[in-house]
């Protein structure tokens, strides 16, 4: 059983769950697909979790965490490393221009989860 009963079926299907039309030994698909690319960009699973009202970003915003600490934390929780100086500058510049910190952090985390680094290393 999956721990999250709301885990969207389409996400698992796109990421290689066998279709189970018939019983067979054919291997599950392990190659990237167009549907995977679409789901990472537009999909409800990722977008909903990024914007979850009791999620990491919501808590950071509620605690008035300074932007540079938020950037560090989002890098650590997604790519398991600290940002480089350039990355941090780019992120902070983007966040500074945004009207809503919550939205800009959501956009930032979405971006990190859509990087090749996340998708191929993690």
């Amino acid at each position, binding site marked *: 059983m999956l721990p999250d009963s709301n885990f969207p079926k*389409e996400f698992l299907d796109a990421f290689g769950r066998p279709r189970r*039309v018939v019983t067979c030994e*054919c291997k599950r698909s392990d190659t990237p697909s*167009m549907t995977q690319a679409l789901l990472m960009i537009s999909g409800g699973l990722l977008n909903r979790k990024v914007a979850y009202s009791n999620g990491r970003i919501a808590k950071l915003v509620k605690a008035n965490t300074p932007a540079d600490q938020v950037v560090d934390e989002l890098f650590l929780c997604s790519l398991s490393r600290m940002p480089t100086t350039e990355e941090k500058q780019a992120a902070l510049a983007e966040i500074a*221009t945004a009207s809503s910190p919550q939205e800009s952090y959501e956009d930032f985390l979405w971006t*990190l989860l859509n990087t090749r680094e996340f998708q191929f290393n993690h």
Partner: protein
Amino acid sequence: MPNTQPSRRAFLQASGVAAGAFVGGQNVFAESTNANPPAKRAIVLFLQGGCSQLDTWDMKPDAPAEYRGEFDSIATATPGYRLCEHMPMLAARTNQFNVLRSVHHGTPSHEAAIHWVLTGYDYPGANTTTKNRNDKPSVGSFVAKVKGPSRPGLPAYFCVPDKGQLGDRVRYADSHFLGMAYSPFESGPIPVDAESPFRVPQPLVMFRDMPVTRFGDRQGLLQQLDNFKRDADASGMMTGMDQFRRTALEMINHPVTQAAIDLSKETRGTRQRYGSNKFGQRALMARRLAEAGVPFTLVNLADNQDWDTHVDNFNAMKTRLLPLLDRAVATLLDELSERGLLDSTLVAVVSEFGRTPKINNNAGRDHWSDVFSVILTGGGLKTGQVLGTSNARAEIPQDRPIHYNDVLATIYRQLGIATDRVFMHEGRPVPILYQGTPIPELI
């Protein structure tokens, strides 16, 4: 220190993120396209399982009972040519298509025959466990490679509903060495009747309709931050995923695929007209995709080798298969023609092989690849011809044998694709087809 760089937002507005891989309307992925081919696109309807030639297009009313089967033949729009009684709509339209009754490839196993029919290449030992993926690129992938998408955000190659065959035990409609960028885009499940609602697959719609400006911001940030490179991308996965992502962003930026695939835009009357069943609704999807401009659409008119009638062939054919096929194909041809699309849209009805002329002990027919029938029309082809004959028991070609690759060569020709063009694979040149010439009577 003041920031002297132009703001990324301004840059995005000026350049238009939406331009994606399309520069001035040119698709930079397409290698070459012949200037003005007669067919702009093709729809291949695939009767997976193996459709009996004797109970459809190649009736043998004078053969002994254990061969001819229980169906009667009926007159058609073509003088002297008779079709199965369970295909009355197509019988009235034989002047609008061509029947090729002497097609052969001589490969009687499902796996190898499916691979052959979808690629033009033999795959010795093809099976559902160790050789269940392409050994050569499929026709649709070659078309996608050579022609590219007809417009931004609309993939060049669609599979309806998916790229699997034999109940998804093999997937031979894929791109193989051409790379994942030329894999088919799968429409996903299609309603099984004319009443069920259709919902656009979630990934084609941006979550909660995010405003365009915010989605643009995200894409800009991604461009800035996505600098990770893997030195050895031997599998090509990262390159493939990059191309997928570029296409995916295009598909969200230009929702043409979302609009094309949305079967709910059709009236109930139209959905009924195609038949309130899975074949009809899939054929309707093919018409929508052709209308949108998809260069190649492969439609599986079967889920789990429905046409593989080893047992109870005649009941299956007259209840579950032929009436549905008759209405779906006839309506597709009618609608393409009414919309002025048939001249530029090649339509083929193919099966991986035919079935044994002699009826077996289970009132069924088994695999038979020595002769079977193919339907071809549209896309600038001449029409109304019944080409080639099989012998008295539909066992082997008699007059004008047609190798199956000639069918593919004809499709490629009409699409303006030279089949002697080669692509390098592991240091060796692989032609689009190694054998097969266009059928002169049809062009």
